[in-house]
């Protein structure tokens, strides 16, 4: 009787739906817009509205702050933290896309007009005119393309299997206290930071000792690149192989599969996507190296050389660098264009390699993958 009256006099409790106590759906968008407008106003107030990056950055900061405060008022601390972290992560991603787009755009903008079939498939030519004594440079990077593929190809062919096999040994066979394992781990750790020019010096000295003083060839440069690639390859592969769950291996052993078959067909196949990533990272790192190449393989501007065992070889990265640092005094535009054009070609080649690698990985990876 009393309780019934009390209950009847109280206003009905609000119905709790799934969205009670939560911010509306598109709140992120609205707050973002608001933050950007506020930032633009601040910058306009200082008279620097043209510094777009500035007010975008300020807008991002304001957005993060605003969404954090708003969410902690409406939703509570835990959900506010979650929302804040999600916004932070999205901002981080956008932050990465900007330099990516900017870099690619810069190279494409400066280099795309240079990429004619004449440029890509011909060696560089110098034409001397006897009447005017003028030498005209006609840019062409075909020898450099071939040189890049040969030198990087040899380096990859040597480093990737060796690095992979070594990583397999380190994770699957070697006991944690094995002395060789400790030494290899130590050396790999130490060598990840080697400056590339030093690797080039080593390769040059090695070939001077083995073949004869002053040997410049493509193989020497490839060896220098191997020294750079192997630590990355070993380290990355080790991490990827370690990730394969123990259960998978033990299931295979339980079925009586031999150890090497387990490794090849179970462990390596499961981690193939990660291994391919590691290999591509290693290749991408060395394909753009300049110093080790020109120290170990010399430099040639016009000659075409497809023999890695004899004679100087140049690569796209070296050509790009040289044209930038030592432009032609009478044809600066040509060498400038050549620098950007060869850089763009290099990126295109790596993109193609990356695509091929991903297709290979997708083909071999086990189906049930996230």
């Amino acid at each position: 009787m009393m309780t019934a009256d009390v209950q009847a006099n109280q206003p009905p409790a609000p119905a709790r739906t799934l969205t009670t106590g939560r911010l509306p759906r598109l709140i992120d968008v609205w707050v973002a817009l608001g933050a950007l407008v506020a930032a633009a106003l601040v910058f306009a107030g200082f008279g620097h509205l043209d510094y777009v990056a500035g007010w975008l950055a300020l807008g991002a900061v304001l957005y993060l702050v605003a969404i954090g405060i708003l969410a902690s008022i409406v939703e509570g601390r835990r959900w506010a933290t979650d929302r804040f972290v999600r916004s932070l992560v999205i901002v981080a991603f956008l932050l990465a896309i900007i330099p990516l787009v900017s870099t690619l755009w810069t190279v494409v903008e400066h280099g795309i007009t240079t990429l004619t079939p004449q440029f890509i498939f011909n060696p560089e030519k110098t034409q001397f005119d006897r009447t005017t004594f003028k030498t005209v440079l006609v840019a062409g990077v075909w020898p450099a393309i071939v040189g890049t593929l040969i030198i990087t190809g040899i380096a990859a062919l040597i480093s990737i299997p060796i690095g992979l096999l070594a990583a397999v040994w380190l994770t699957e066979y070697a006991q944690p206290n094995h002395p060789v394992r400790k030494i290899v781990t130590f050396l790999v750790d130490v060598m990840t930071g080697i400056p590339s020019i030093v690797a080039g010096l080593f390769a040059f000295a090695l070939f001077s000792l083995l073949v004869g003083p002053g040997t410049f060839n493509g193989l020497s440069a490839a060896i220098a690149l191997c020294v750079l690639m192997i630590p990355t390859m070993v380290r990355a592969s080790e991490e990827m192989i370690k990730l394969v769950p123990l259960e998978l291996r033990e299931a295979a052993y339980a079925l009586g599969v031999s150890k090497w078959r387990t490794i090849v067909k179970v462990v390596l196949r499961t981690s193939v996507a990660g291994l391919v990533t590691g290999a591509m990272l290693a290749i991408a790192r060395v394909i753009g190296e300049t110093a080790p190449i020109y120290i170990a393989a010399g430099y040639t501007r016009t000659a075409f050389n497809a023999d890695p065992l004899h004679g100087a070889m140049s690569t796209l990265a070296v050509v790009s660098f040289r044209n930038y640092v030592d432009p032609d005094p009478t044809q600066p535009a040509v060498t400038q264009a050549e620098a950007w054009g060869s850089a763009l070609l290099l990126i295109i080649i790596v993109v193609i390699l990356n695509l091929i690698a991903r297709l290979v990985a997708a083909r071999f990876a086990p189906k049930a993958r996230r």
Partner: protein
Amino acid sequence: MKITRSGSIAAFALIGTLALAGCAATGGTNTPSATPTSKVGLNAIDPSLTGTITAAGSSAQVAAQTGYSAAFASVATGVTLNYNPEGSGGGRKDFIAGALDFAGSDAPLSADEATQATATFPGGALDIPVYLDGVAIAYNNKDASSLNLSAATLAKIFSGKITDWSDPAIAADNGGKALAAKKITVVTRSDSSGTMQNLTNFLGGEAASDWAAGPNLGTLPQIPGMDLQKGGAAVATEIAAVDGAIGGVDHSALGSLVAASVEGVKLSNDGIAEAMATGFAIKPNSTPGDLSGGFDYAKIKADTKAYPIPLVSYAIIPAQFKDAAKKKLVVAYLEFIASADGQKAGATKANSAELPDAILKQVVATLATVK
């Protein structure tokens, strides 16, 4: 355009036939003494020469080497030059190691290096001047459409004692009128270069009281605010981009920048050649025929037509080659460089000056002694 092309083709054909005939007449050898005196420069090249010349070194020479080799290869089509502009020091190192046919270097071999070279080349090595250019003082200041700087003022600017364009010393060099106040940013190279060596030689010679660091320095001593860039081209670009910048660049890297007059002399190819003719003195050297030398800046200053900061670059070759065919090729190439045709080809490509005849004669004489 068409006429010139077919004219050149006809000229090539004519020269080629003559050269072949000449070669046949002299039995295929092409030593200087056997060549008739009417064959100089391009005409003296033996078109049957083939091979690859491996060279490396000074980046100042690289454009000129492109010109020299293109002209040379227009007659001797089987010859390729691989010139790696890794830097004078690298060139000398590789030469001593026996990796190169010749090295391009802005500085001759030091006494130490010459001794090391005798281990690889028992006869020793020869430094031969092949390239002449000047050090331009480039600046970026819209208030000064023309500028004159004395050695003392330059020394003070590059050592950081003068930091503003309105300084009275600069005004004194330019008829007394002071420029508007603007900070001076000295731009220079982060790698060592013959340009700086020659500049500091000049400053050490002509402004020793203001230039404490001394002559013959490949890198300028650090001063606060000094802007260092990698490579001469980057220095030029930086000077063009920074208002109030000044720096020493190769004449050939000047591009659209304005160069200051130094000691009242404007920068010009004639001025540089005059300086070389007046001021270059070959130093006495242990290896006979070695033509390394230095500039007497007092003499250059006394000559009012001479540009005060010349720069000479050398080719370093062994006095005795191990391989006869290689010797023939390299000597023929260098002889071409030491001809009027060669110098013109290189200077046209590199926007640089040409070595005077007196020096070229000495170069040819030295090349004749190479075994």
